[in-house]
């Protein structure tokens, strides 16, 4: 019951946050000199009447505050509006969400099962050459501009012919049997996953290392050591259990990042994900699409934090007493 009340309170708290986010983004976008109809205007075969019709349809002839009001009203009703091409924003997002989810889930899964153990190993072997080398390697992973890494991998794919050049499925995907389909998607995913994995692995490994170092410094660990427990036992029985809390918070953040997409990587690999969609929408100032995706990002972030907090309450009774 207490937890439910807490959740309710948190949800109510998010409403002003969402209003601020939408106001900031809406005004920045609309105040920009970018014209969503630019492409049409420069097309010699598009007539004046068509342009006029488009302007009215998108409400570009009205003051910004009216536009915002219109947008907010339909947003509350659950209507995300249409893109500047006249397609429904909701269907547009629906097309891309599964693809982005697939990519991010795979990346998160891989980087957690590799990053967490590496973080533990580094912390346990703190200040040894092993730790130093790992740090340098992760630094290297963080130092390559992601788009550049992606371009190099694509060239690698062409030169060796081992991997398909971007995209998510082959052109004869429809006719494939299930195992073939599965392999086809896996095959296409390998390169983009490699890029994103390299980046997120570095961060995760460092985070885990820092967390564990923090815990290993704690009194109860010192106490456990003093009791004469073996180092393995100290780490797995006492330290790790306490290093879990920050990880739960981190999991919340990862959840938030599920749908924000990796624009540059998706762009270079021509991956049909949300990141590329939003990037193109932002560049074109396609307001409904941008707003919908920004709001989605904000809601995911809030939800992620909320889930993390709830998990913390469940796993750690101390917090329950203090916060709720």
């Amino acid at each position, binding site marked *: 019951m207490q937890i439910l009340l807490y959740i309710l309170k948190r949800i109510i708290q998010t409403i002003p946050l969402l209003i601020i986010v939408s106001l900031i983004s809406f005004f920045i976008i609309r105040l920009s000199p970018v*014209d969503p109809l630019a492409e049409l205007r*420069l097309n010699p075969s598009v007539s004046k*009447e068509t342009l006029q019709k488009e302007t009215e349809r998108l409400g570009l002839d009205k003051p910004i505050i009216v536009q915002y009001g219109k947008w907010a009203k339909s947003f509350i009703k659950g209507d995300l509006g249409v893109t500047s091409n006249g397609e429904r924003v909701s269907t547009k997002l629906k097309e891309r969400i599964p693809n982005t989810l697939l990519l991010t889930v795979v990346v998160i899964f891989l980087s957690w099962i590799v990053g967490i153990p590496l973080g533990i190993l580094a912390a346990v072997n703190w200040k040894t050459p092993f730790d130093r080398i790992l740090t340098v390697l992760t630094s290297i992973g963080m130092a390559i501009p992601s788009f550049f890494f992606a371009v190099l991998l694509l060239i690698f794919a062409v030169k060796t012919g081992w991997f398909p050049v971007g995209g998510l499925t082959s052109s004869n995907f429809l006719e494939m049997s299930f195992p073939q389909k599965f392999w086809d998607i896996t095959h296409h995913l390998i390169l983009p996953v490699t890029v994103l994995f390299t980046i997120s692995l570095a961060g995760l490994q460092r985070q885990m290392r820092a967390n564990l170092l923090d815990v290993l410094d704690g009194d109860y660990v010192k106490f456990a050591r003093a009791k004469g427990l073996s180092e393995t036992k100290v780490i797995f029985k006492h330290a790790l259990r306490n290093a879990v809390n920050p990880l739960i918070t981190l999991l919340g953040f990862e959840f938030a990042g599920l749908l924000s997409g990796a624009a540059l990587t998706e762009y270079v690999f*021509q991956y049909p994900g949300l990141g590329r969609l939003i990037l193109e929408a932002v560049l074109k100032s396609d307001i409904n699409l941008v707003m919908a995706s920004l709001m989605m990002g904000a809601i995911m972030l809030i939800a992620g934090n909320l889930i993390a907090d709830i998990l913390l309450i469940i796993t750690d009774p101390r917090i329950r007493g203090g916060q709720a």
Partner: protein
Amino acid sequence: MYVIIVLVLVLAFCRACIRADVPEEQKPILRYKIEDESTSYQTEKNVTINGVDYLESQLPNGKFGGTFVTSTIGEGPKTFNPFNAKDNISSAMSEIMYDGLVTTDPETGETIPKLAKSFTVNGCEYLINLRKGLKWSDGKPITADDVVFTWQNIIFDGYGNTSTRDSVVIEGKLPTVEKIDDYTVKFVTPKPFAPFLRMLSSPIAPKHIFQTAVNRGKEYFDGFLSTNTEPKEFVTSGAFRLKEYVPAQRVVFEKNPNYYVINKNGEKLPYLDKLVYLIVGDINNQVLKFEGGELDEISLQGSNVARFKEMEKHSDFRVYNIGPDTGTMYIAMNMNNRTDENGKFYVNPVKQRWFQDKNFRQAVDYALDRKNMVFNIANGLAEPLFTPETLNSIFLNKNLPAYGKDIKKSEELLKKSGFRRDKAGHLVDKYGNHVEFDLYTNAGNTEREAIGVMVKQDLEDLGMKVNFKPIEFNSLVNKLMATLDWDMVIMGFTGSPLEPNGGKNVWLSDGTLHIFNQRLEKDLSSKRYPFENRIDYLYNQGALATKFEDRKKFYDEYQEIVYDEKPLIYIYSPIRIVALRNKFKNIYPTSLGGVTHNLEEIYIEDK
């Protein structure tokens, strides 16, 4: 340890410093022989078998089956409804599925029958005879009802994108369309109007499918046959019909079993089972996909051409040089002399005096080093351009000579208008103002940015001060179309090689793309420059004349005016190069149609 590393580095440096000057031996250049297919393309002919009016392919018979994979750059189609298409990709996709009454001969550029069996033009009257026995992909017959419905109820009544309708309005009146019998339709234009015949290439819609959408109103029609529609619901007349659309990835078309083109054995074409358009984001990815074997055809530009040419010798594709493309690149100066609502000039009056001075514009033109622009930026694969009609246009005025950079001539022209150099070498006008202005282009376009850098240098040779400012594309368009506060810009258009009237939005003085002197709604009746009036006249007359020779006279003069007045200074037109896999046969590239204009006749030869 460190000593060793440093030592190694120093030694490596010394080794690198010592290099002998030995001329490389000239490698014998292997010239790759291209067997020349001198036979030109044979247009399909009408034949009637069992009361059905087919088109018969005149090319060698081929094998059935296989897939052709090509690509489109950008976000992919936005609709599959041919009447809603506003962008090139959507129109291209719908043109694959829906044939028009007429089409263009890829060799000569003449208008030839397509869905129509034949047509006769008599002044304002266009009599169209349809083919008998043709069927839509769902088996229903194609009749005059479909044609009348398409033109009257969709186009003339203003459904979807009204651009087609707007461009056939002649002096405020629409043409009429009338069914004579099941297979004959008559169009009547209010006045003789030459571009109308080519407009008849607009797709024809199946009445039994579109009728309900039209009944439900324009708003419903805008979303009709969108990209979310089930592929099964498409009923088409073209060689292919939609099979699958995967957003941001590809569009797959399959063969239309009822298509009306047959080969000499009487078998129904197309040969290919499937046609796939991959949706790719940029040229880089396209090139990579071709090399990775995922694409069968690609248009090449710049330095890629040389590489493909080199690879051609030991690869399974051929590189075709199709000649000048329809793309153009130009510099425009803002010749606007009006004020905005607050009485403020869009263009600073000091600068107005320069940009409205013909000598100044010509001086800029003569200062441009087109040769090196072609060399550096287009890798030699472009032709300098001096007229608004592209080099492959059938209306090109060939009497206008090309010229190179001529600083002396520029300086003479400037002197005529009272410009002079001050002590520091800056150009000043006769009132003592320093000549300094902004040059814009869209940021992120490497080609235009590089041209901008060169133009800036060329003009600085004359003592002008040019602030080169690449800005974001959308902001740039806003400047050009709405706020009008710009001085000079580098932009490009895609022209039509067949119909100059397509450029009327650019050249008519009240056009929506009259870029060098854009008139906003409130300025539509403002004063014209004499040459603008003349071009207005020529454009209108050119459209009303019907014989090619008569029209050419009008369009020749308009090109002469642009050549002389330089409202737009054209820079170059790229050459179109296409690479295509060798396994495809019946390939007859033409300058107007490209490589795959006869898609239904192309087949795959097995090895």
